[in-house]
């Protein structure tokens, strides 16, 4: 028996040996870069069979590899190279032949594609609070970017602390950043995940084929029908933190034999969520595109898409309110109307985009493209408006217990009995309290019912920002030699945006009156001054009565013209790559008032002063210029430009080093340029370009399943302008802080690493973002209110970039120097707000050969700071009514609030099945914030009001308002494809 076994083994071994010797099959190819098809030297190619590594080799200088003597079987190749995204290719060797794959193309790691939503839930973060923009638009195979883009979004992580406007977003080669604000316009295509999936992105300072790029990455969404994944796909997604369901269907033909490609993508996102009452989605999305390939040289495509819909918004409240309601997700925007939840703040949008794109590829070494793109439609946001009636917001400070009693006697709030009554009114879970803890719609209607002449005292307004935006872009890419590639292009934009508000609901009344109610209080004696539309008043002798859908309040056009010329030159030789990029641009904008406001009447159409009842209405600013609300403002012109140098060097063994440096001169945006664009043509004094210098150094390692990137960066942004507007209920008006000369410094490191562990399919990854994003100047600030020409404050903010911390004696009192001045112990920096400056993640990921995947990750976030209010950083605020600034007042008023650090645990799992090799069904399920951490602040702001203390010696601040992250929540995605 024993002999028999030995013989059998020997026979088997010999058969195996015989078969090996008989193997003649093989696999060969050239590994090339997707950019320029240049060969990649030193790429690591792993050959696997059934998940087991068979062989490994590196490509030569020509990028070629060749595995010989392979038996007939199914193999997989894992190809990795530093600076490139790892790729896997499945190859079947048959009939003992050598399979020549010709090219294995690697995508540069900086140009990365969104992760398939079969493995991840989906990045679909819309404005649940006050911002419309996600942190990073894409996920990728770069470990750091993947985690920062998706995993960190729950805490509103901002890449390197930069604002959204620094993140350039292109669609079909056209720059899409909002012309007014500069924000990335994600909401234009949210819900069209399939149609917009194909995209290329770079990070940091890297340039791209369609732009010279800025300092915070560039993304281009292809949107071409031929780039949409062919086939029919359907999915249902449910989640508990944003909207209940998303239904999506997508069909793409791929490139047909006749050269045509079609694609259609539609989705609906509907329902509320488990965490924030009143927040709902009713959003739809539709994309359709057709493309014709004519010969090998021409491609022409016409696409159109829109995402019409409505969604209810969340509001920030003070901690007192959250504590009273025992719920940090309390939303003051809604109330019951006839027992139904109704949200007062609903964003209603319909902004269709249509684009015509042409691509010309006469040879392998040259391609050119041109796109004409038009965006139109409306973008409205409802809010309550009221006239001479009590503030309807349930969390208005006079409704809260703290308004009646505070422990600190300096507040002079001592009515403990009413305090008790207020506590009772805010006791959660008491049905009779509902109309006091939320908007009391029934009361608003009843007030209007009883208004004797049908005049609505409460109404719902809809603030519109309706854009008409036409763009023409063209670019070329030319591989001049194997060593040198040039990309260049030109973009032009004409934008005309109408900003106005209209009546969305009269709430049971008949009309609303078009007057400025605060002006009415101050200028009661002159009916002309209170008019929002003076021309109407002068013509008709009375204020305009506004019906449903009519515009009122303010109405003006933002006119923007922009042109940009850019070019990149890339030199590749061996392991060295150097790119030089430059751009030159023009930006011009002006405001065009469509109505004449009584307070800022300006000159009449003949250029003469305007009088009413003998009183001069025309007013002048301190320089003697007419303050005008109607007509064209001065045109602001800016010359912009940038220059960048990028270099990378690759060493054998999968190491890559790169460095970038750039200088940028950017124009201020329209919304940063007018002291109060709603009411007048006055520009902020001292408008100028912001200047940015930025540089980074990176090291990357990519080999044998290990993937690592470490980057250090430094950015200084100078001379920024900003206009912040807040509703100030003491003035019943918007108050505006126009700031100039804001400087920031962003320094930090990014680290991401992924490594295989001891079990096949199990990997671990670690990500760290550590930065210091600080203000480095004390800007100049001018404060105005919408309903007065008066400049309320005009001063430099002495406590914007930092505040002093004074030395204290052992008894806790402040220490003073001999000259009587308090001793400064140290200076406390002020930080760029609303993003964690320390963020980290550790994750374990397990994938099986049967298409299961599991992930568990822990995240830590710290050093996130509250948005600062300029008023609290003035000498006025720290000095108090008595004009004396004490150390205590300075520290109290100017210190910036830091949010508590937090730890989050998340897990996900998924599986897909192939049916008859034709159909694919699967799901992914993700649970976020498993520890149900409900006190994670993601943002907020300081209010703008000051309270004079009873001693009249100092001011107290109003409580800040905050946004919180939801507790434990899930996302389930079920999909079907064929």
């Amino acid at each position, binding site marked *: 028996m024993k002999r028999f076994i030995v013989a059998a083994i020997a026979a088997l071994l010999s058969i195996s040996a015989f078969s090996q010797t008989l193997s003649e099959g093989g696999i060969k190819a050239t590994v090339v870069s997707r950019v320029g098809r240049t060969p990649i030297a030193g790429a690591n190619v792993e050959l696997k069979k059934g998940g087991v590594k068979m062989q490994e080799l590196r490509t030569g200088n020509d990028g070629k590899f060749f595995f010989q003597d392979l038996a007939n079987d199914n193999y997989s190749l894992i190809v990795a190279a530093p600076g490139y995204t790892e790729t896997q290719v499945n190859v079947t060797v048959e009939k003992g032949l050598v399979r020549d794959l010709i090219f294995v193309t690697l995508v540069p790691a900086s140009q990365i594609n969104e992760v398939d939503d079969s493995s991840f839930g989906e990045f679909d973060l819309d404005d649940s609070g006050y911002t419309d923009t996600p942190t990073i638009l894409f996920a990728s195979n770069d470990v750091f970017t993947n985690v920062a883009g998706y995993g960190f979004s729950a805490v509103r992580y901002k890449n390197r602390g930069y604002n959204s406007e620094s993140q350039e977003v292109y669609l079909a080669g056209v720059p899409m950043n909002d012309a007014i604000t500069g924000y990335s316009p994600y909401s234009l295509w949210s819900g069209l995940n399939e149609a917009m999936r194909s995209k290329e992105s770079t990070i940091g300072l890297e340039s791209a084929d369609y732009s010279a790029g800025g300092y915070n990455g560039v993304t281009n969404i292809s949107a071409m029908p031929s780039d949409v994944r062919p086939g029919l796909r359907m999915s249902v997604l449910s989640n508990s933190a944003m909207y209940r369901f998303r239904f999506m269907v997508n069909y793409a033909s791929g490139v047909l034999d006749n050269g045509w490609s079609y694609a259609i993508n539609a989705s609906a996102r509907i*329902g*509320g969520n488990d965490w924030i009452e009143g927040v709902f989605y009713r959003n739809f999305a539709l994309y359709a595109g057709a493309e014709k390939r004519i010969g090998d040289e021409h491609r022409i495509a016409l696409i159109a898409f829109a995402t019409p819909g409505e969604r209810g918004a969340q509001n920030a409240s003070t901690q007192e309110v959250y504590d009273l309601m025992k719920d940090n997700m309390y939303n003051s925007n809604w109330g019951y109307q006839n027992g139904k939840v*109704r949200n007062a703040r609903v964003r209603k949008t319909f902004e269709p985009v249509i684009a015509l794109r042409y691509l010309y590829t006469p040879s392998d070494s040259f391609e050119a493209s041109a796109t004409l793109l038009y965006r139109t439609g409306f973008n409205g946001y409802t809010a309550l408006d009221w006239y001479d009636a009590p503030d309807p917001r349930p969390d208005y400070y006079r409704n809260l217990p703290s308004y009646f009693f505070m422990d600190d006697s300096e507040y002079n709030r001592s009515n*403990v009995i009413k305090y008790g009554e207020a506590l009772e009114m805010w006791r959660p879970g008491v049905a009779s309290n509902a109309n006091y803890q939320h908007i*009391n719609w029934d009361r608003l*209607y009843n007030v209007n019912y009883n208004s004797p002449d049908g005049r609505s005292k409460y109404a719902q307004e809809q603030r519109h920002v309706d854009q008409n935006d036409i763009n023409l872009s063209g670019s070329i890419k030319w591989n001049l030699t194997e060593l040198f590639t040039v990309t260049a292009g030109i973009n032009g934009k004409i934008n005309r945006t109408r900003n106005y508000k209209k009546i969305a609901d009269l709430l*049971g009344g008949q009309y609303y009156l078009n007057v400025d109610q605060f002006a009415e209080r101050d200028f009661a004696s002159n009916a002309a001054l209170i008019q929002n539309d003076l021309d109407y008043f002068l013509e008709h002798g009375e204020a305009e009565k506004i019906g449903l859908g009519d515009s009122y309040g303010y109405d003006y056009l933002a006119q923007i013209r922009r042109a940009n010329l850019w070019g990149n030159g890339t030199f590749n030789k061996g392991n060295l790559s150097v790119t030089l990029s430059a751009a030159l641009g023009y930006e011009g904008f002006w405001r065009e008032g469509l109505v004449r406001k009584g307070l800022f009447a300006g000159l009449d159409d003949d250029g003469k002063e305007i009088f009413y009842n003998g009183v001069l209405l025309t007013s002048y600013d301190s320089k003697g210029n007419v303050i005008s609300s109607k007509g064209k403002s001065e045109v602001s012109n800016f010359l912009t430009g940038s220059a960048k140098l990028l270099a990378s060097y690759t060493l054998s063994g999968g190491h890559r080093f790169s460095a970038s440096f750039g200088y940028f001169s950017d124009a201020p945006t329209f919304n940063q340029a007018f002291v109060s664009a709603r009411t007048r043509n006055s520009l902020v004094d001292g408008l100028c370009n912001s200047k940015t210098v930025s540089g980074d150094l990176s090291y990357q390692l990519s080999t044998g399943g290990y993937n690592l990137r470490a980057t250090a960066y430094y950015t200084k942004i100078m001379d920024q302008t900003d206009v912040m507007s807040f509703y100030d209920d003491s003035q019943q008006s918007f108050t505006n802080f126009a700031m100039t000369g804001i400087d920031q410094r962003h320094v930090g490191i990014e680290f991401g690493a992924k490594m295989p562990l001891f079990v096949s399919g199990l990997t671990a990854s670690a990500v760290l973002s550590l930065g210091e994003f600080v203000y480095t100047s004390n800007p100049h600030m001018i404060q105005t209110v919408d309903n007065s020409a008066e400049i309320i404050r005009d001063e430099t903010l002495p406590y914007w970039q930092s505040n002093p911390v004074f030395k204290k004696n052992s008894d806790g009192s402040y220490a003073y120097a001999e000259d009587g001045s308090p001793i400064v112990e140290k200076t406390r920096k002020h930080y760029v707000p609303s993003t964690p400056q320390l963020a980290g993640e550790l994750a374990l990921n397990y994938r099986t050969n049967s298409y299961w995947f599991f992930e568990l990750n822990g995240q830590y976030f710290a050093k996130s700071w509250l948005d600062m209010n300029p008023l609290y950083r003035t000498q006025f605020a720290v000095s108090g009514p008595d004009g004396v600034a004490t150390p205590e007042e300075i520290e109290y008023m100017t210190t910036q609030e830091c949010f508590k650090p937090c730890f989050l645990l998340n897990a996900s799992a998924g599986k897909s099945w192939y049916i008859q090799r034709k159909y694919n069904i699967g799901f992914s399920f993700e649970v976020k914030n498993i520890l149900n951490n409900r006190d994670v602040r993601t943002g907020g702001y300081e209010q703008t009001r000051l309270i004079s203390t009873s001693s009249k010696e100092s001011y107290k601040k109003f409580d800040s308002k905050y946004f919180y992250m939801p507790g434990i929540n899930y996302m389930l995605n*079920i999909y079907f494809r064929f």
Partner: protein
Amino acid sequence: MKKIAIISAALAVLCSCQALKEEFQPVFTGSYDNPEPYTWYSDSDFSNIVSIKDLCACYSKKNPFVMPGSHVSLANAVIKGRVSTTDRPGNFYKSLYIEDGTAGIELKIGKNGLYNDYQQGQTVYVKLGGLSLGMYGYKDGNYGGQGMVQIGYEDPSGDYETAYLELSKLIDAHILRGNPADIRIPEPLVIDKESGLPNSKTEHQGKNGKLGRLVTLKGLKYANEVFCLLYLNSQKDKEDFANRVFLSSSNNSDPTCGVTTLAMSETKMTEYLLSGAWDQCKVGSGSNYAKDDQGNIITIGSLKGNGRYPGVEKAAYSVSQYFKMGSTEIQIRTSGYCRFSDYEIPEDVLSGKRAIDVTGILTNYQGSLQLVVNSAADFVYSDTKEPLYN
């Protein structure tokens, strides 16, 4: 594996069905039915309606109390009255008066825009239990006298005898509306003789039912005196004599100080200031004038800098005019925030050639009678009955 897929799908469908009910009803409709009008109250809803005069009679000076207190008659009591004031033109602020034919009383509700919720002429019922009955404006001594009995909330600080209700839930629990279709503004009582006026030194609503009610005072003559109090800095103590100026008493040569308007808006006040008409007026109160470091009396003119008066222009102020019925001076209280504050008193009234009839709420402040009008339409000429202001 197929089982898992089927279970997942079934779970999703189940979730959908449950969620459909709660999620999509308001979301998909997008429109909301108008709410029903308020339910309203009538006498039959209450068992113990007491008169305002009887209620006020329960008050004794300096003894505010939370009702019913020791008063058996106030157990489960309500008062009923029609709203006699409106805060729409802005001369009443955060409170309203009701009257029932026996007297009138102020309800210190503590919200602005009250006319939106309680129309002038509408009946309201006030549930007294838990509210505070107190007085505003009482002053001891020879020059003092009675104030007005009011209904408000308890003020434990003791600063005032009553506080505003302010909290919506408190207001809704105590101030109940009558039929909104039954609107009748109370007919004003007419007082055309000085002897018909209440005794401001000794009487409040509990003794004289004319107080707190809408009255028409006939034949009023301009008293050639303005009440005008300016502050130098709103953020500083308003009781500090160095922070205030009583215009008429600091400028004895002309107690009107050139003011010819009923009151003054902020714009009008600034106009007067910038004209320099008040530059000679002294800072201080009574004969206690503020002095600078050199011992010179500070005048408004000395505060001027660069052609402006930075502190005074921003600070609070109060302006009203005095009229006379016989020898009794009656201040017609007008707010600078009301819409008719800048209305000019006609020349023939200022000169004393013509008398006027004025309708308003008759009140008592520290033993002096005051009249608070609802609107500019409340002023008419005594002879022709034509309105002063159209």
